[in-house]
């Protein structure tokens, strides 16, 4: 008996049982009150669902076993070759013949398709993707990865999944293509940009940013980010822009995008991206925004960006803002001044320390003075000499080797790395 007729037989058996159960309930309890009829009906229904669930557990277990076996087979057959392709040994561009040799494939194997079914192709991509994201060496050449994938007809399969697959398959295939740095045809992207699923639409937009020769954010409507922005979007956007820069394409004017947004969170995102991608040429455009806005977080982000990008033209604005801004914002401004370290804002920092009663701001001001080069250090020592009893606890942080490590402004570097850190990573 074939598998399908076997399944058909059991389905018909189950249907017959259901029919029997309901007939039994209807006739057996025909004379009983409605409450009893209801109870009997619910019981029969529950029994049937329990049986269905048990069968589906068995079915899932069989599917899993099948998947596990296929995975083992793919890993056994191609695992060694995949590992070689992502290792540092594959640093030179390899020909198709060489790759064929690595995968221990004969010419006869290449006559037909290497992976026959979609199931095999899906598993192959899954396995290779894992090798790619977990074991890939920086020295391995992306060109080899692409040659190998084309040899196995994977790009064609992924494009098919992206256009015709279910939502889950679409998202997976797009993610694989983006991570494996495969080029995505514009017609596929255009089709997805009209998808009714926001998730698919967004992934397509980010894919478009990677390779579009036009302005990278052309496809986004002005209010797109205002309505739909989360940290993941910023990560994806950063990833796409980084790839774009690596390909030698121009980045969009992020300062302009910060200007045209309404949401503070989104504006901050674009300012942060500017900082990340070292977009110093647009720093001047942020001056208007800085003067006009009353949003605290945005002022903090712009100050930080100016500090990191060493935009010294803004120092007067920062000194002015330090007098007017609330305590939370003052900390970011003082950090920016310390990073600029032109010598102009030493007195402003000292005022920042003296003119507040907030212990956090006083500590941060002291931290900035300590880090402000030799003249800052001299000022710090003078302040320490004349410190009141209440202030002495702040200075104790600068003498303990463990807390001293946190005094330097390096910790923030990890959250907002300079462009070198991003690209080396």
């Amino acid at each position, binding site marked *: 008996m074939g598998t399908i007729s076997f399944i058909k037989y059991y389905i018909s058996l189950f249907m017959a049982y259901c029919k029997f159960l309901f007939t039994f309930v209807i006739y057996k309890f025909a004379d009983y009150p409605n409450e009893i009829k209801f109870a*009997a009906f619910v019981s029969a229904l529950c029994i049937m669902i329990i049986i269905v669930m048990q069968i589906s557990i068995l079915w899932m277990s069989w599917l899993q076993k099948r998947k596990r076996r296929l995975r083992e087979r793919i890993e056994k057959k191609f695992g060694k070759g995949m590992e070689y392709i992502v290792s540092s040994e594959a640093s030179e561009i390899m020909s198709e013949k060489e790759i064929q040799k690595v995968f221990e494939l004969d010419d006869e194997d290449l006559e037909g398709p290497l992976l026959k079914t979609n199931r095999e192709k899906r598993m192959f991509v899954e396995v290779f993707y894992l090798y790619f*994201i977990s074991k890939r060496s920086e020295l391995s050449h992306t060109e080899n990865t692409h040659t190998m994938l084309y040899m196995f007809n994977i790009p064609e399969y992924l494009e098919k999944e992206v256009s015709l697959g279910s939502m889950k398959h679409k998202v997976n295939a797009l*993610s694989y293509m983006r991570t494996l740095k495969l080029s995505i045809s514009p017609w596929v992207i255009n089709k997805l940009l009209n998808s009714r699923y926001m998730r698919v639409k967004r992934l397509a937009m980010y894919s478009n940013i990677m390779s579009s020769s036009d302005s990278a954010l052309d496809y986004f409507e002005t209010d797109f980010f205002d309505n739909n922005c989360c940290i993941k979007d910023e990560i994806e956007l950063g990833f796409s822009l980084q790839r774009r820069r690596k390909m030698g394409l121009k980045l969009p004017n992020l300062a302009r995008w910060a200007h045209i947004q309404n949401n503070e969170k989104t504006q901050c995102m674009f300012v942060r991206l500017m900082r990340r991608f070292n977009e110093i040429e647009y720093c001047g455009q942020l001056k208007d925004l800085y003067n006009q806005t009353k949003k605290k977080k945005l002022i903090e982000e712009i100050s930080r960006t100016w500090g990191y990008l060493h935009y010294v033209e803004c120092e007067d604005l920062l000194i002015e803002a330090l007098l007017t801004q609330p305590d939370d914002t003052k900390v970011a401004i003082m950090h920016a001044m310390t990073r600029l370290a032109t010598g102009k804002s030493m007195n402003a920092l000292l005022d920042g320390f003296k003119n507040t009663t907030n212990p956090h701001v006083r500590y941060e001001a002291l931290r900035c003075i300590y880090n402000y080069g030799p003249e800052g250090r001299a000022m710090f020592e003078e302040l320490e000499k004349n410190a009141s009893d209440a202030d002495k606890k702040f200075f104790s942080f600068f003498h303990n080797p463990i807390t001293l490590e946190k005094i330097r402004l390096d910790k923030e570097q*990890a959250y907002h790395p300079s462009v070198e850190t991003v690209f080396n990573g």
Partner: protein
Amino acid sequence: MWLTIYYIFCYLVFAYTILLIVGYVWLVFMSRLAQKQLDINLPDDDTIKYLMQGSPLTPAVSIIAPAYNEEVTIIDSVNSIMQIDYPDYEIIIVNDESTDRTMELLIEEYKLVEVPYDIAMRVQSKPIKRVLKSTDERYSKLIVVDKVHGGRKADGSNAGINVCSNKYFVCTDVDCIIEPMALYRMMWFVINSHKPMIGVGATMLMSNGCIVEDGKVAEAHVPNTIIPMFQQLEYLRSFLISKLGWSRINALPNISGGFGLFDTDVAVKSGGYDPMSMAEDVDMLLRMVTYMKNSGQDFQLALVPKVCCWTEGPGSLKQLVRQRTRWARGLFEIVSNHRKLFFNPHYGPIGALTLPYLFLFEFIAPLFEIVGFLFMIWLTLTGGVNWSAAFIIFGMIYIFSVFISFFVLYFDYKLKAVNWKHTKSSYLKLMIATLLEPFIYHPIITYCSNVGYWRFIANTTAVWTPIQRKGVKKR
């Protein structure tokens, strides 16, 4: 007149039962939808790690674990927490003035020295005596806080909140075993949320019967003893059906105190944990919801069933009764302290749906059961029972409860929330527990709930007695 009362009562019970069934079916349906959404939104661990590990935007997390007289397990527990894989986190162990060698052991093992500190007491807790950090680079993430004895876990957690410097904190028990990928999976939901995520919950499970290796659960077994086995089933039902279902409509009523992630700022603004509460986790979450709603802010709550936190549950009947009596008392406290939230649509789906459900089917149910039981005895004595009808209705209730538990096993299998070892025997054990639970375990829980309510009404002094731990099997 008595006959009229009798009929009214009978129909009331029947209507209550129907409502309960409808409620459960709806939760099953919602949890199925949530599970479908999870299938799409939660990628595999490697992808999550690949995207988050190198990103400068991955939020930092503080892990807070209060400890009191834990000399037997403290080093293993801290080592277990240190196994967590996440790019940016700090561990805050709060020593609640232990009378044993807990603090000495920590100082010796991790080469701790006192460091200067200036901590703003943002939430109420007993004073902090000293803050210690390690001189060893390997333990640079570890902060040990030594504080004046507060007597409750909530007080220790609050001290930890005061010390923590990150936007998010995780509150856990020091003896809990956490999966290494737990933070990645929880934070994935935070970075994917379009609204401010104020809390993320995980699945709590029994570590009784599991085998632990290097601070990680190497083999997850269903407990062999009967009391923990029933609790395992109960926990699975609570997390995979009830909480997952509620999380689908952003109405999660509770993030377990054993392992939950919270937004520090919102937790501080809503006052942190209440050291006097018997259900401090539910209490804090409801205060956070109240704060967000009253200040007109939108928020998100999530449950990630694929994050498991293993904890040792009561192994004996005596301990179980003590724990559940305390929980019932806590539930009564919640109902009385947060009564303005109940049936109040201003507080969103939590006020309009979850809390009414909690009130009707979790708070009142044990009272209904006990009244029903006494009524049945009276009817039996007076010969007023229609046995065949009673048998059918009882059969329906029993089959329905078995059906819900089977659904949990089905979900567990589909979600792969727990990587059970020896799947067949584990499932067989849980299936047997499912069939026996209504007769053995459920009456005990009903009894405990009623005792807890009575103690709350009688205003007896609440004593918090920690569970006597046997420890887990180690390889």
